[in-house]
Each structure stands twice: as C-alpha cells, then as structure tokens.
C-alpha cells in the first residue's frame, strides 16, 4: 500500500503558489473542499485560476478567495450566487470563462484519462463555440474541447483511507470524482479517514492511484444553499 496520508491541510497544500491553476470539487456548496479553501485564503496565493462548477457565495466557499481578491480567472458553468463575484466581474477585475456543465465535467475526465480533447455537441452554434473547431459527425455538429490542465485538484470525499481510496456521499460526489487525477497533484480531504482495508474494494469511487495526498479534514460546516422542506401533511 502506497501511503498518501499527510498530517494536516498545511502539509497537504505544500507547493501551492500564486499564478497556479486549481480545480475545486463541489456543486454549489455541496461537497466543496472547505479545509483546502480556508488554507488557500491563509496562504494568500494570488492571481490563481480556479476551475469549479460554481463560485461559492458571499462569505463561504470560493467566495472567501474572491473577497480576498486572490482569483484572477474563474472557469465555471454557473456563477453569480454572490455579490462580490458580480462586482469583480462587471468591473473587469475578474476574468470569467463560462463552460457548459457537461463539457466542464468531461474536460476534467479527459485530463484524468489522458485524452487531449473531445468532440461534444454542447454549445455548437452559440458563442461558447466561437473560435473553436467544429465538425460534423453523422449529420450533427460538434465542438472540439480541450482537456483541462491544472496544478492542483482539491477534492472532498466522505470517507477515504491512507492508500488514497475515496468514497463519496450523495450528490456531494459531483465534480470531485472527475477532478481526481486531473491535475498534477490531487489533494483529497475527507470527513472520515478510515483504517486501510475497511473500504469495500468493490465500492471505491476513486482508486488511490488518482490521489497524491489525503488528510482528515475538520470543522466542516456543510452549509445548505436552498433549504427546502415539505410540510408533514403535504401530498406529493
């Protein structure tokens, strides 16, 4: 067993620098690497490019890096749940590249799997395809999209072991699974670091080979963006 365990978030983020490109898992605030984000704020790395489906909210998630003006460029599919993001984007301080969500996911998967580029129908005929190569396959037009290149991927899992094996819970899986192994160094933080051999080899979502560093995370807030409930006698 190749041991990927590191002591804490400080050790896990050794080597992060300004001007780097980071991938960050999560959908909205669901499954975001809270510990890594806090540490990025503390380290105050500047002018970074962040690949993340969303950009957090004011005061939480990537919103923390935005407030601190650490982000030069965001690559996302859906943004603007926070005012600071909007302000920086409209003022031109922040560069924003909007990418269809499925394309974003596959650009991660392509990087993980060693594919340089892929053809997708998403975005054909829209400004997303501007300047990109297009091609007809079986009468349907496709856009050529390139794999992402990133220095670090920060992902958050439910459980993990020292071998780097990861298991996710619910919809907190999302982009976390696709970003593992898609950057030079993948750092996984887990809610529970379990003993080696306790995860069922049949049900490991990410084999440890895709993870370089893993640590026991702490103080998870796991905020809910849209708390929606039904009433006890509501019929569905």
């Amino acid at each position: 067993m190749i041991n990927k365990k590191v002591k804490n978030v400080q050790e896990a983020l050794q080597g992060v620098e300004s001007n780097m490109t980071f991938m960050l898992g999560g959908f909205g605030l669901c499954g975001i690497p809270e510990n890594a984000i806090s540490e990025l704020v503390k380290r105050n790395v500047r002018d970074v490019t962040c690949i993340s489906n969303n950009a957090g909210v004011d005061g939480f998630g990537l919103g923390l890096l935005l407030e601190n003006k650490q982000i030069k460029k965001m690559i996302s599919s859906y943004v603007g749940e926070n005012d600071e993001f909007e302000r920086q984007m409209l003022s031109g301080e922040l560069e924003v590249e909007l990418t269809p969500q499925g394309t974003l996911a596959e650009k991660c998967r392509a990087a993980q799997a060693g594919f340089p580029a892929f053809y997708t129908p998403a975005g054909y005929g829209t400004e997303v395809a501007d300047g990109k190569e297009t091609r007809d396959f079986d009468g349907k037009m496709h856009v050529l999209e390139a794999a992402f290149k990133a220095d670090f991927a920060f992902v958050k899992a439910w459980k993990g072991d020292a071998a780097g094996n990861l298991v996710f819970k619910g919809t907190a899986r999302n982009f976390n699974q696709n970003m593992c192994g898609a950057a030079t160094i993948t750092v996984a933080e887990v809610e529970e670091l379990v003993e080696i051999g306790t995860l069922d080899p049949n049900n490991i979502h990410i084999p440890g080979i895709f993870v370089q560093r893993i640590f026991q995370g702490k103080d998870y807030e796991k905020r809910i963006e849209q708390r929606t409930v039904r009433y006890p006698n509501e019929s569905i």
Partner: protein
Amino acid sequence: MLDKIGIAKRIAQEVQDGFYVNLGIGIPTLVANYVRNDIEVEFQSENGVLGMGPFPFEGAEDADIINAGKQTITTLPGASFFDSATSFSMIRGKHVDLTILGAMEVAENGDIANWKIPGKMVKGMGGAMDLVASAENIIVAMMHANKRGESKILKTCSLPLTGVGCVTKVVTNLAVLEVRDNAFHLLERAPGVSIEEIQNATEGTLIIAGEIPEMKM
C-alpha cells in the same frame, strides 16, 4: 390564461409512462408535482442523482443531497448517485427521454436563448447547453410575452443562443405550440384565450390549422 402552476400542470400531461425526465429550474421544477400517479417516471438532476423524490420533512434535510437548483431533496427507492461526467453521459447519450426547461426566447426554427442578457450580470448556462444540444424531446415552459408585452415567441432569437434548432414544444400561459418546419404550430389554447390573442402575442410564424381545442386541465 395560465399561471405558472397551470403551465406546469399542462406540461405534466406530456410526461409519459417510463420516461426519465430532467427538469430545469423555475416552472419546470413544479412539473414533478402534477405528473399522474398511475405512471412510472424517474427524475434526473444533472448534479448527480436519478430517482429524486419530494423535498424532505423539516429536520431531515441533508446538505449532501440536493438537486441542480441547490435545494435539499429526498430520493425514492431505486435511486442512485453518480459523478458529473456520468450524469452528462446520461444526457449527451440520449438516455434521458424528456427535458423541460425555461427560456427567455424561442425562435420558429427551434433555437433557444435562456442564459445571457448582454450588459447584464451573466449567471452562466449551467447544464442547459448540454441538455438542449443532445435531447430529442425538449419542452420549453415560458411566458408568451415579457413584462413589457413583447413576444418571446420569435422569428429569430435576439439574445445569445443556448442551442440551435432543438426545441420541439413550447407551453406558455397562452398556448401549446409545436415547433417544426420553421414555424410554431398552434396545438391548444389556454382556457379562455382566443386564437387572436395568441396570434397577437406571437412574433414568429404561427400556423393555425383546423380546429384549435382548448387545453384540458
């Protein structure tokens, strides 16, 4: 004339037994509440869940179980969770049978615009571009006209496109329209709405053939 719930109810009639359905944010989300009980349907959400159920009871919310609108949800027996790439494999691979989403504009050739208004804050396309590029059965839920009374059922879209030639049906507060052969074909009128009202509210080519029934709600 229909309200938002009326539009959702009418669209719910389009959902067939055995359909996997992806619902967009807004009116489409409401459709789930009005699907007939005697058919089997599964709802897919692009953030990685198949087999979505209703909202949880208070106290049972789980931050790790949300839909694409970031709302807390529950799952039904037979549900599954998966990663984003697999989720879009379902969408791009045409395994989802029906996509229901909102729009700012729809054109008579099936173009749709729903993600960007130049000069305004842009929130992004999310999964909409992937959905409209691959789905073969796309129903748009929208108001026939904007707040200034201008038609959103157009000859050509004026806003940046989300997808080209993809919309198959539009259900508005006034009518059900089928989109084919570069025209909107009027299928049904909303309760109490005349053909003339629909005609006046439609900028795109409107085909009115035969008797146009009122919607059965």
